[in-house]
């Protein structure tokens, strides 16, 4: 995999990310006026910064409770993992698995994959570019599902309002979890997959 093929950059052209028009480098696309850049500005640095912030938020998101249930007998706080165990114990292991994947595995997977891709772009490590793209597309496609637990918490809070019998409040972990989901989504959109392929053409690297 080291064949130099004609890219837009190697021909001195820039492709508009919005409307797809190819044009010579200029600040704005001549057709749709969207900002034009050969590669997303500071893609690697910004992606890594967003991933670091997401990783920091991921810790309190899992340690702090996300739902606090108050009943006549007292109150009980549940973390994300506690909620998954409750779903599993109530017999719906499929939903428990879905929440485990969406809330625990997808955020970690997004951070790991994007960190690896950023490492690939900045080092000369030998990897299959096609496999990198497969991972990137999976992360970009699946990323939105990590918002699942935020919606679950919001609906449970809205629904279980039967004071004094029982009421549920959002716990301090919810904003951290939401921040992890949003930051990793922005990180995936900030990373520029074309940088993975630019390694094949070191002479034209911008």
């Amino acid at each position, binding site marked *: 995999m080291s064949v130099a093929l004609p890219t837009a950059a190697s021909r001195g*052209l820039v492709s508009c990310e919005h409307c797809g028009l*190819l044009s010579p480098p200029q600040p704005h696309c001549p057709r749709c006026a969207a900002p034009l850049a050969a590669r997303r500005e500071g893609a690697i640095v910004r992606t890594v910064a967003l991933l670091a912030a997401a990783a920091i938020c991921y810790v309190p998101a899992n340690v702090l409770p996300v739902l606090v249930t108050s009943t006549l007998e007292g109150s009980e706080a549940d973390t994300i993992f506690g909620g998954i165990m409750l779903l599993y114990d109530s017999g719906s292991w499929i939903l428990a698995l879905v929440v485990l994947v969406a809330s625990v595995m997808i955020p970690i997977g997004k951070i790991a994959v994007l960190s690896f891709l950023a490492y690939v772009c900045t080092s000369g490590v030998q990897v299959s*570019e096609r496999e990198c793209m497969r991972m990137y597309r999976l992360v970009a496609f699946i990323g939105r599902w990590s*918002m699942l637990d935020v919606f679950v918490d*919001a609906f449970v*809070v809205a629904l279980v309002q039967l004071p004094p019998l029982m009421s549920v*409040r959002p716990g301090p972990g919810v904003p951290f979890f939401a921040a992890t989901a949003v930051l990793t989504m922005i990180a995936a959109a900030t990373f520029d997959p074309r940088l993975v392929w630019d390694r094949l053409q070191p002479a034209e690297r911008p």
Partner: protein
Amino acid sequence: MALVACPDCDLLHAASGVPERGTAHCVRCGGALLLAAPVRGQPELAVAVAAMMLLAVALGAPLMRLSELGHVSVATLPQSAVDMWRNGSRPTAILVAICSFVAPAAYLALVAGSLVGCMRTPPARWAGKLIRWCGRVQPWTMPEVMLLGTLVAFVKVAEIADASPDIGMYAVAGVAVLIAWLGGAVRPASVWSRILAPP
């Protein structure tokens, strides 16, 4: 012959021989090329309007109801964001509001507006401006995630009290299907090629 670069790996392709409504993929990395497909206008507009009506139902009708010892509590979409705000987590409340109904409503309005602009003769330039905003709003439009969220919440509360789904939940499912269809049918490249040919 018109050239087009792959959005994922920048490889140049000669954009010819793509069937109508078909998708062309990059030969090197498999990325979908940003090619124009014909926009018919009226069918897409009809779907956008239908989705708006369903979204209105999803906003007004209760998603679920819960009863326990004679107390009945009902959850609607806007109310879940308001409850989140009242109970202490304001940034999360704003995020829930954006992803569950503000972004979908904005997306549908922008798509409908853009299609109306496209159908004028000559097609209006502002149609393109609207479709550009669509691209910014679309990632935050997540009715399908919300639908699964309501399902999980439903199972969670069914444990503790008698819960039943309501009209709003079916409306959300409809919105999710129609928005997914619109995302594939109305592409920015198509709208722009209709407004003006590449210089």
